[in-house]
């Protein structure tokens, strides 16, 4: 892979994941450099969500190393990976529908001690997402789809992550909401958070990312600077509609 090791925030080497007899990831390699947005694109079933779940420690890996900030984390339980600074915002948002917006946000800070500046972070999160402010006391399940995605992002930020693992943030949202969402994602990125972004909307993903990986049936088929992949005829044909 050959990039300067001091700039690599996350590196995944030879990652294998099995569901029973089926091998879903077959020796995946990827890197996320500090300060960058790295996109992971590919068809349904290529293993994108599995990759994120293995990085987060939800699905055990059969083989391979996952290094975060220079340290191997593949044997740590999920909660310790969150504590080290990687937070996943899962597909389908998965906010807690019968907790209030406020409680959802507090849940996001679970990896931190009783008072590690949670109050300031709450205020900052609500400034970034003003729509959530008036709805603080409302049950999260009553929010619209777009608001729920904003809540999921805000909740993820409450952990003060160094790396956000974003799984299909735009799925099921109206085009207007998607463009708002991506401008907020840019804003979060500018504030210094690195990201690994899984998106079915490959066009958006390759626009926003600096580096991209194309996944095909459990391993990396192509990778490189996002702008190059945008021009690649095979990528255009398969993921960008010609």
């Amino acid at each position, binding site marked *: 892979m050959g990039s300067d090791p001091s700039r690599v925030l996350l590196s995944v080497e030879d990652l294998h994941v099995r569901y029973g007899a089926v091998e879903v990831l077959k020796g995946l390699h990827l890197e996320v450099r500090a300060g960058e947005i790295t996109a992971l694109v590919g068809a349904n079933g290529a293993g994108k969500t599995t990759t994120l779940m293995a990085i987060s420690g939800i699905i055990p890996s059969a083989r391979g190393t996952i290094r975060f900030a220079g340290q191997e984390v593949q044997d740590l339980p999920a*909660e310790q990976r969150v504590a080290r600074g990687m937070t996943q915002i899962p597909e389908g948002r998965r906010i*807690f*529908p019968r*907790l209030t917006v406020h*409680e959802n946000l507090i849940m996001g800070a*679970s990896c931190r001690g*009783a008072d590690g500046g949670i109050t300031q972070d709450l205020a900052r999160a609500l400034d970034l997402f003003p729509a959530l402010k008036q709805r603080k006391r409302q049950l999260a399940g009553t929010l619209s789809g777009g608001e729920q995605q904003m809540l999921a992002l805000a909740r993820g930020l409450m*952990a003060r992550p160094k790396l956000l693992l974003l799984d299909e943030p735009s799925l099921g949202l109206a085009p207007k909401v998607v463009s708002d969402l991506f401008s907020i994602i840019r804003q979060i990125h500018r504030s210094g958070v690195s990201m690994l972004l899984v998106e079915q909307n490959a066009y958006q993903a390759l626009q926003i990312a600096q580096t991209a990986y194309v996944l095909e049936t459990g391993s990396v088929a192509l990778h490189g600077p996002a702008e190059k992949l945008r021009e690649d005829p095979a990528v255009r044909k398969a993921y960008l509609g010609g």
Partner: protein
Amino acid sequence: MTPGELFLQQILNGLTIGAVYALIALGYTMVYGIIQLINFAHGEVFMLGSYMGLTVFLLAGTIGSGGVGWLLLALCTATVGCSLLGLAVERVAYRPLRQAPKLSVLITAIGVSFFLQNAVMLGYGAQDRYVPALLPAVRWGGGAVTVTPMQGVIFGVSLLLMVGLQGIVYGTRLGRNMRATAQDPLAARLMGISVDQVIAGTFAIGSALAGVGGLLFGVYYSTINFHDGYLVGLKAFTAAVMGGIGNLPGAMLGGLLLGLLEGLGAGYISSQWKNVIAFVVLILVLLLRPHGLLGERLSERA
């Protein structure tokens, strides 16, 4: 006794046992809410609460009297002892099966139930054990309708515990984590929650409630047997299902309602029929309102 007095007396008696059912039902419903397990060993935790109480009272018999103090000590022993027991059962029997099919865990729960029953039978004997009356055998209330001090204790203690439980569930970090885990365990893990700790906390609290229920039950009826956990546990489970399994207010309502039905059934039909009445009601609820009185209609989680 006038018909009105009889009715009122049966309601009071029914509510007393209903409060005990409610305490036990809470444990069933909390554990089900978090890991979708019908913890069939929960009735045995209840039974052990009464035997822990008995042990304290036997000690009291050798040392000397002073009813209320011993009752308090027995309450503390049952609370602490049963929550430790719940933690141990979860750690030893259920945690290793976290990834196993639900049926394996269910069978294990039945196994734990047999194990605890037989352990108590070996330790304390198969015969009924007599629990000394600690509170004066007076009846409050001048007329035909009366309440015993022990009934008062049962109402007071269960009310306190139910209010306390609401306080924990809605006012503490553990409670928030419990609610979040019940709603979406995967999302809770992604937030950095140790789901194992939340499950352990749930077992500790649920078992403590059952233990207190067991102690109160033993003192109220004054005889206990190692079999008691089976039927009482089944009825408390019925109460949890009636109220809507997974729903805390539902478990409280279900317990009180079941106690009331039993009390009225015993007063107006025959006390021999009270179990039949309880289970006929369960069947009716399952037929007419399968998700329980306060339960939400939920599809099975994948």
